[in-house]
């Protein structure tokens, strides 16, 4: 990896169309800085995003990128990494993309433990469609399609990940720039599926889960000297604690073995291992 990569090398010439003050600016900056800081080259990086405000990120970053369909960013990203372990893959998504329409993929991506990072810009609202409830919206959060609130509890994405056998679970806050970048860096460096849920406030449609709310309620696990991320039980406790909003790495399996190591996937698939059948001619003879 070239050491002279700067985070601006990941930046495209397109100016984001996010609303001024949107949490996604900070989230994306942290992602670019984390990629550069971990020595990744934009020519060797593949960013995948789905649909929604978060989906635009591939336009504002300048790497290899795919802006796909709603909820399907994780499967595309896994396909890239599972066939090319030498490529750095980062998937960006929103709370709707990841925990609603793509929730099924999330569970199985976590299980598969492909060596990539997944950064979810969680604003607890559907922004691009102009303010409807998301799976992480509070049960009494009134929106145009839920006039009296969704009347159902929000998804706890961290618990969902834990229950699915995650090897890395973290949460960060977009406006705490340095900590956010550090946490994403840890997700990138993790040997396996590095999942970060980012509080990324929507300044236009969400007047409840605001910057002020998170500033007032955020507890950084870094300040808790007793918290050991490799301790599953401790992680469980923090993740299931619905009274507080935590920042930091909740859980990390230090014995995590990523997909390509478990399956012996090499960087060049066109090379057939010695002794293996090479073509159909080698295979049809057994049908005599």
């Amino acid at each position, binding site marked *: 990896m070239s050491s002279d990569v700067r985070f601006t090398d990941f930046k495209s010439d397109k100016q984001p169309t996010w609303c001024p003050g949107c949490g996604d600016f900070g989230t994306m900056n942290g992602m670019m800085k984390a990629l550069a800081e971990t020595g990744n080259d934009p020519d060797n990086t593949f960013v995948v995003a789905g649909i929604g405000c978060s989906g635009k990120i591939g336009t504002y970053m*300048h790497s290899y*990128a795919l802006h796909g369909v709603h909820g399907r960013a994780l499967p595309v990203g896994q396909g890239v990494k599972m066939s090319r372990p030498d490529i750095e893959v980062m998937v960006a998504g929103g709370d709707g993309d990841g925990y609603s329409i793509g929730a099924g993929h999330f569970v199985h991506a976590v299980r598969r433990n492909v060596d990539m990072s997944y950064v979810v810009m969680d604003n607890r609202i559907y922004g691009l469609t102009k303010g409807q409830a998301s799976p992480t919206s509070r049960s009494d959060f009134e929106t145009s399609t839920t006039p009296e609130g969704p009347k159902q509890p929000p998804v706890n994405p961290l618990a969902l990940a834990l229950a699915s056998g995650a090897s890395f679970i973290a949460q960060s806050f977009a406006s705490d720039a340095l900590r956010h970048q550090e946490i994403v860096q840890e997700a990138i460096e993790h040997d396996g599926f590095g999942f970060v849920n980012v509080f990324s406030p929507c300044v236009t449609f969400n007047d409840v889960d605001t910057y002020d709310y998170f500033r007032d309620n955020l507890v950084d696990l870094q300040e808790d000297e007793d918290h050991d991320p490799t301790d599953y039980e401790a992680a469980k406790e923090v993740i299931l604690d619905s009274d507080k909003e935590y920042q930091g790495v909740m859980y990390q399996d230090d014995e995590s073995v990523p997909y390509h190591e478990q399956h012996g996937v090499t960087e060049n698939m*066109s090379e057939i291992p010695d002794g293996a059948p090479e*073509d159909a001619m080698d295979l049809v003879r057994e049908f005599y």
Partner: protein
Amino acid sequence: MSDDELIWRIAGGSGDGIDSTSQNFAKALMRSGLNVFTHRHYPSRIRGGHTYVEIRAAEREVQSRGDGYNFLLSLGDSFARNPQEEAFYGNEEIKPLSENLDELREGGVIVYDSGLISDEDVADLNLEERAEENGWHVYPVDLRGLAKEHGREVMRNTAGVGVTAALLDLDLEHIEDLMSDAMGGDVLEANLEILHDAYEMTEEDFEFEHDLRAPTGDHDTEQALLSGSNAIAYGAIDAGCRFIAGYPMTPWTDVFTILSQNFPDMGGVSEQVEDEIAAAALAVGASHAGVKSMSGSSGGGFALMSEPLGLAEMTETPLVLIESMRAGPSTGLPTKPEQSDLEFVLYTSQADSQRVVFAPGNIEEAYEQTRLAFDIAWDYQIPAIVIYDQKLSGENKNVDIEFFDREVSPDLGSTLTEDELREAAHDNSGKFKRFNYEDAEDGVSPRSIPGQKGGRYLATGNEHSPVGHINEDPDNRVAQMERRLEKLEAIRTELDEERDSTQTYFGPDEADYGIITWGSSQGAVEEAIERLNNDGHSVKGISVSDMMPFAEKEVTEFLESVDEAMVVEMNATGQFRGLIQKELGRYGDKMTSLLKFNGNPFEPGEVVEGYEVNVAEEDQQPDAQVRIEPAAGD
């Protein structure tokens, strides 16, 4: 209906070992020098239920299951004896005998397991009376007892094969060889004892009254017994595909299984994922990463792929998807064939289709067209679909091994090297013009793959500018849309002018009447046309594979060359006839449909009968379960 062929039907319960027994018996017949063709009929159940396999063997080439059959080995259903199951399903023990009698030819042979099927049950069937009427020869043998004597009860299928061989005067050599390949130790020894005992006992106990004997033949070259699923999987392997993601669904599971067993050894990846949306989306990702990739399913799962398929069209991602049809709608008849997903596969996903669809009609075509799909997909950066069905998936045929002696093609088509990328067009900010509509030959704008210097671009499902950014400018929109569609015209030209035709023709060059078919109905049509011409009719046939872009020139020429035509397909609404009319804009008054949708494929005789009724212009239907849909205006 000639008896210079053997059509051996082995019937039993699911789980009675019908598949493995018939596979080995078919191989033994193939090794003895015969051409063989197998047909599989089974319920959507793990154990029990009436299932059978037919093996047709003759000295000449055989392309279909034939009409009816002439030898029944009825094992009875050993899984039907659980009293709870019987209460639920009724007496199924007898079904492998009772359910099979209608199609048995005159003079046919019946062997049944008298150790499992009781005399009372047989008496209830009036078997004796019916045998006399039809000239059948019935040989009750206690297969179960024979098996138990030397080994275990489950080996009664081996006893059945021994009895079959004796009655057909078939040498045991090849059967023994195949058994020795498949098993060893005590199991092999017991099976060999059962085989020999059954053979000798049959010769001693019975006076043979039947005329049927195993035909003889000779192969000049080494043969392999392969299914359509084998052919598709091997086509993918030889095309250099090394990545598959899938979700199990009958009958597609066969291809998925074969590749899952081979890719890991070959350095590739096979992954069973959470659903078919993910399956196709993973394949899209792998293709972007520069690895030849595929996915597939049957109709229900393919429906879920409509999102990633549309994404692949818009992002011009090379991709091969396989669609293995079964009877629908919805869950339909899960283990029965139908050709009713044609319109669905042509138009799955929103907006104007920008894809390639091939429909192979036999095992060799399945291999060749799967390879062709990969070649076209990677040359033109377009998704290519291979559509086939449960019939072609499960049927086995002997293929000359030399057929597979060809070069593999791992190259990535219109993908640039890093050196070429340096020369390629970039915008002022240094972005690669991945989707360049200026100077795009045949509509193809070459691509880069991650890791290459200077190749970075954004692929998006939105309409986009040459560097891949979201762009809603009308001029850009029209230019990009026209460029993508131009690829389909270029593909049609390549198929017509630079490659051997993927359409297959039957019968004489000149004929009054034409039969048009597609996909797996080909074999029955081929045989019907041969029979009709032998009987003095003037009939020729075409089996069409290029569904999109449509084989316009060849189908037009064919229709122009005949007075009238009949379109034969396994569905209820004549989807392919509709496609011909849509693509050619005429001939609606020239084409009659012969349709079948009862869950069983066409037999050649049904096509012959359909022709006869149609030409005689009699106002009737040929058969209770085959339909004629008249031409427009008739």
